């Protein structure tokens, strides 16, 4: 039932507490059978917070997952947009909700492993303060340029013989981090020009206002296929199936995998059985045709892994990025 457990510190929850007490679900080791007759979700609706505006990728993913979950659990699952500060506002709200499984949030990886590098101490939420239900998908960044620029590889950029300008979708985004890392490693003199989101960045690249830009694959694919934009590299770990002919930055010799990733978060302390019901619900949602179609339409690579794996990946990402950023003296905030 909806026992009202106050949020418990993450550090305590890992230790082998008795089952009755370990309601601060430590995701990965749930293994055991769930008390299937426990009444979750009861008849109560589930709210899924989204920290972005309606209509964006995060919102669309949340809505598709919510539909599947609702069908599976038999209760309404409503998406509530709470945009602001790259999702930090929604995360703040989530942290204050009861961990009864009735309030969830679609959490962006960039908020977990990139924003903390750009903003001041304590301005980005800590993923250790949440339970993670399940991973959702990966979104790739691609470095593009206008055909008229004459660039088609990282070497071309290095050989430009002048400082280049690169458009980013904003400060503290994967778009910025991916390019900063690439140009630092390739020793290219480059200036970041931040825009408000993917569409203005693309416009600036198309119009030759900036030399290159890094945007999410789904936003650029139409222009790439029509020849309006030339892809240089993707920042994926391995070539995304949607763009098989473009090398990744890793292949090109630069160690900079940067991807947007999304996962479902819950307030800390969700009971194990509730967590299991939710996970089963999401698994069923991922199987639906509508959800898979959404992934395909938006060029998303499914990453429907366990919550704890997400936690590990994201924590590792943050540590790695922090290390490289320090190594190359990159300042994501006060950009040079």
């Amino acid at each position, binding site marked *: 039932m909806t026992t009202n457990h106050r949020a418990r510190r993450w550090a305590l929850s890992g230790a082998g507490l008795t089952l009755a007490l370990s309601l601060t679900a430590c995701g990965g080791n749930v293994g055991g059978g769930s008390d299937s007759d426990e009444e979750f979700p009861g008849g109560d609706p589930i709210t899924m917070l989204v920290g972005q505006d309606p209509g964006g990728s995060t919102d669309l993913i949340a809505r598709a997952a919510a539909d599947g979950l609702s069908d599976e659990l038999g209760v309404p699952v409503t998406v*509530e947009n709470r945009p*602001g500060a790259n999702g930090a506002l929604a995360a703040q709200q989530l942290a204050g909700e009861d961990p009864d499984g009735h309030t969830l949030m679609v959490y962006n990886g960039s908020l977990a492993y990139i924003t903390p590098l750009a903003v001041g101490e304590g301005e980005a939420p800590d993923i250790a303060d949440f339970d993670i239900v399940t991973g959702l998908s990966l979104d790739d960044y691609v470095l593009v340029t206008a055909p008229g620029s004459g660039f088609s590889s990282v070497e071309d950029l290095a050989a430009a013989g002048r400082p280049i300008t690169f458009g980013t979708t*904003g*400060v503290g985004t994967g778009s910025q981090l991916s390019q900063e890392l690439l140009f630092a490693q390739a020793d290219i003199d480059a*200036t970041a*020009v931040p825009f408000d989101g993917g*569409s203005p960045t693309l416009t*600036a690249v198309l119009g030759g*206002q900036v030399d290159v830009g890094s945007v999410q694959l789904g936003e650029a694919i139409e222009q790439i296929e029509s020849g309006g934009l030339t892809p240089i590299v993707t920042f994926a770990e391995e070539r995304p199936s949607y763009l098989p002919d473009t090398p990744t930055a890793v292949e090109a010799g630069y160690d900079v995998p940067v991807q947007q990733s999304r996962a479902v978060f819950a307030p800390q302390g969700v009971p194990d059985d509730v967590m299991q019901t939710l996970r089963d619900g999401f698994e069923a949602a991922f199987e639906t045709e509508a959800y898979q179609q959404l992934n395909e339409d938006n060029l998303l690579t499914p990453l429907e892994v366990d919550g704890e794996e997400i936690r590990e990946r994201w924590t590792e990402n943050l540590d790695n990025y922090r290390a490289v950023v320090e190594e190359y003296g990159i300042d994501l905030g006060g950009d040079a």
Partner: protein
Amino acid sequence: MDLAPVLDGFAVVLEPTNLLYCLIGVVVGMLVGVLPGLGPAATIAILLPITIGIEPVTAIIMLAGIFYGAQYGGTITSVLLKLPGEASSVVTVFDGYAMARQGRAGTALGIAAIGSFAGGTISIVALSFLAPLVASFALDFGPPEYTALALLGILLVATVSSGSRLKAVVAACVGLLLATVGRDGFTATERFTFGNLNLADGLDFVPIAMGLFGLGEILYNLEQRHNATQAPTKVANVWPSRQDLRQSSGAIGRGSVIGFFLGILPGGGATLSSLAAYAVEKRRSKTPERFGKGAVEGVAGPETANNAAATSSFIPLLTLGIPANATMAVIFGALLVVGVTPGPQLVTEEPELFWGVVNSMYIGNILLLIMSIPLVGLFVKILRVRPAILAPITVLITLIGVYTVNNSVFDIVLVIVFGVLGYLMKKAGFDPGPLLLAFVLGALLEDGLRRSLLIFDGDATGFFTRPISGTLLVVFLVVAVYPFVASLRSRRRQEPAQDTSDPNTKELV
């Protein structure tokens, strides 16, 4: 030009839902046009939240209908009751009411309706041709061009607005300052957020608009003592005589042109163009002494111009993403709420939305022409609804509405704060319009300038070496210097001040 998207646009308008919302829009528009105080900007601001649930194109069709519908509605009370329901109909009072007292109220309303229709339609046709042309330069518009455009916009807003110029500048400066609140988009440094995450993305446009225009207007109107509604003059002879038509045809033509061009200019719009059209008619007339005593051109000119301007002010918004006046700023907000970013890409990326909205104005104008005469009596009755009933309901709708946009209690607080600010501003004679416009343009200006300087590697002369931004900056200089030259010249000539228009508007005529 390629006509296919234009025709598709008509298909969009003729969908029953869109027709219905167009009708709702123009009826609501006429309604608020009739009600003194509550203008179209306020109404659209209050109705912003309801657009969330409906299709973007449908929502904008309705809001646009409110805007130009209000221009029709404002005429009715000006003519019949000497009570301009809307700022843009103030000049209509001079001759319209005089005509009504001579028993020619019907003629005045008829001419106004015909003029409005003609002005609106001419403006739409011009819009249809001009907008794609502007949009074809879209990719050449980079940060430097936006910087120059925003600079020009802010200058025009401050110098051209009706009322005291100094006060407009002060309001615009406050708007610019408010635009700096939030996490800086270039360095991620917090500015004026006081550690509050709600402010990290800056102040949201919607609650500011709803507060300044919606709540502020309501509060201000409550203070006005409402005169007992006079019995409206009997309306007969709606169809103007042939002589009336002949007399006003020139005024309608000139009004269309004046309205169209002043509507495009930032800071222009319906009110200004109606003043300008009136001044032009009076100056051109061989018998200027008839003005103020029931000259039919005095109704035809301004009424045509305000509708033409209402339509053409959509051009900078839909093609460049720059709102030309306060109402457009609110519609700008509405587009953002429904998930559409107005800008050069709109015509090509969302042709259905663009042409759907543009073409809906043809239909809306026809609807207005059909409705405006028979419904006169009904609309006048609405004036009898007491503010004591109307005001609390509107406040409630406003507050519930703003919450639903972002599900944020903080936004409710913002509306109240800006509502009080809007009220105090009006009370002190400040127009909240320049504040809101400067707020919108301020973000554009700062981001554009900083982006440009990054691209130019800090070299400010780059602005002048690019053709579009260079031209815009030259225009900026001309507009900035012209008032001084003009005032010097007029002082030398000792031109007597015109009795109708306020001194600031003359420079534009």
